[in-house]
């Protein structure tokens, strides 16, 4: 990893390949954002180019093409995602195919259970309890959930095992070179994901639309959602969430997402991966191949 001394403070700016180089096969990787928003897609494409395998992938509250692409590329061994789908654009095609073929077993979670698992991880306690899951089949199929009796009231409750990811991958609107992070729209569960990762000794990687100058955070610390004390590496990737949104900055690209879903549903996720992930060897080449200037203008317009 390349770090540059800046007086007494260290810049955390690295290249995309340097950042994903922290990830090794078999790790637990937690992805921030939700559904079509704030997904670190440039980093996900780089993980696929890196040829990673056997990752346990966590995304909370929701996921779409981020996790689906990792499944399509054979990167994910296990997924913990409370909602993995394409909302009004349909099902998550590669997730659906892999599970129906018996190749991938998802760990079923409600959003509140997985958030609680990360909360327990962030507080470094072995488990936490909730009522969520009582009366459902979720508890029966997920080994990280167990129905127990509350020691105080005797009520049935669900114990959730703590999770501390090895790596957190987040996408934000801006960061300074030290890793103070700001969002244009909703930050979803990114802070909690970073806290659970950091508490377990894992690494937090943030990709950002732009790197702001020194003093930007100092002028508005109330707008910093994640402090640099939580962040290990920062990568500048304009349009790095495409085809998802950078929430509040540009919209999700529904036609691109729809064309992926159509290709993958027809059994041709490989064609999509070749055109959008493998042939473009860098994020800059991806933007040149997959996103036109006129589309950029439209997507920015849809978010304002």
């Amino acid at each position, binding site marked *: 990893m390349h770090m540059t001394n800046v007086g007494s403070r260290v810049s955390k700016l690295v290249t995309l390949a340097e950042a994903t180089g922290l990830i090794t096969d078999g790790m637990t990787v937690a992805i921030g954002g939700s559904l079509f928003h704030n997904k670190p897609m440039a980093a996900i494409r780089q993980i696929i180019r890196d040829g990673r395998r056997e990752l346990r992938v966590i995304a909370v509250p929701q996921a779409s093409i981020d996790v689906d692409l990792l499944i399509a590329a054979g990167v994910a061994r296990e997924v913990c995602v409370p909602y993995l789908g394409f909302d009004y654009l349909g099902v998550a095609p590669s997730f659906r195919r892999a599970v*129906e073929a018996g190749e991938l077993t998802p760990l079923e979670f409600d959003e509140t259970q997985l958030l609680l698992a990360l909360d327990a991880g962030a507080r470094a306690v072995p488990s936490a309890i909730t009522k969520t899951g009582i009366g*459902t089949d979720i508890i029966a199929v997920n080994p990280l959930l167990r129905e127990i009796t509350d020691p105080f009231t005797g009520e049935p409750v669900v114990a959730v095992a703590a999770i501390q990811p090895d790596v957190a991958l987040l996408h934000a609107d801006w960061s300074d070179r030290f890793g103070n992070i700001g969002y244009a729209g*909703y930050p979803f569960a990114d802070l909690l994901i970073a806290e659970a990762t950091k508490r377990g000794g894992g690494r937090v990687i943030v990709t950002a639309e732009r790197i702001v100058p020194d003093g930007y955070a100092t002028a508005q610390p109330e707008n910093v959602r994640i402090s640099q004390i939580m962040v290990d590496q920062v990568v500048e990737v304009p349009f790095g969430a495409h085809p998802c949104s950078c929430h509040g900055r540009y919209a999700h690209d529904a036609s691109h997402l729809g064309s992926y879903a159509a290709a993958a549903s027809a059994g041709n996720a490989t064609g999509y991966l070749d055109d959008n992930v493998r042939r473009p060897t860098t994020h800059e080449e991806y933007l040149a191949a997959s996103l036109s200037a006129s589309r950029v203008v439209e997507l920015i317009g849809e978010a304002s």
Partner: protein
Amino acid sequence: MNAPSVESQNWAEMCAVLLSKELRDGEVGSPGGARSEIALAAARLAQETHAPNLGLITSAVGYVSNNRGRPPAPLRSLTTDYRNIYAGTEAILGIESVFRTTRDWFFAGGLQVDRFGNLNLSAIGDWDAPRFRGPGAAGLAYCSICAKRYYIYLNEHSPRTLVEQVDFVTAIGHGSGSRSREQLGLTTTGPKLAVTPMAVLDFETPDKRMRLRSVHPWFTPQEVIEATGFELNVPERVPTTPLATEEELLILRERVDPDGVLRKR
């Protein structure tokens, strides 16, 4: 004012109006996540009409909004679309608050719903190699026990969506019926109504079995019974679901859904 007519509206608009009347002024709730245009429209319409003090929290993001008295904000298909959730947003809750805030009401969809209102969003068929893998629980296992009451919306009314018993209970309805929820220590009511493209259903029976509450004017009770995969409780006289009045439709279309997202359903 003209009399309401079956030509002037579709089931989605009619149900948005019907559900808006279920939401009382001063309550707090959420419209649910995926494919929840009807629910979001119902909540916004309630704010525009009889419930100006309704607290509306967009699900999975903590945007608390009230668009009353502001320029119309077109409904979008994606609940979490920035334009959608920013319409009339007054406060933004952190993700912890989203799940700590009690809801009076909630809306939930599903792949399957059974005779007691239990929902399956996970998998159809064998768990280890299902015939159909769905998106998962989202937050519905939580909301089905946290919200004081909830409303089910289904975009298809057929024997494959309305089944005797769900293949997987992702969110609890009335469990195995009768006093199931109380026996599990749950203090909330569970599902109150279910709306489908054909009918409105409720659980107002001694054993909480689903009952045919009303049939939409485009169908007969017999058609609904045949499109349901279990034995519905059917009252002797089945009412027709009330159409939205022309005035209600006007407010819905001018204030809540000027782009006609519901009309295209």
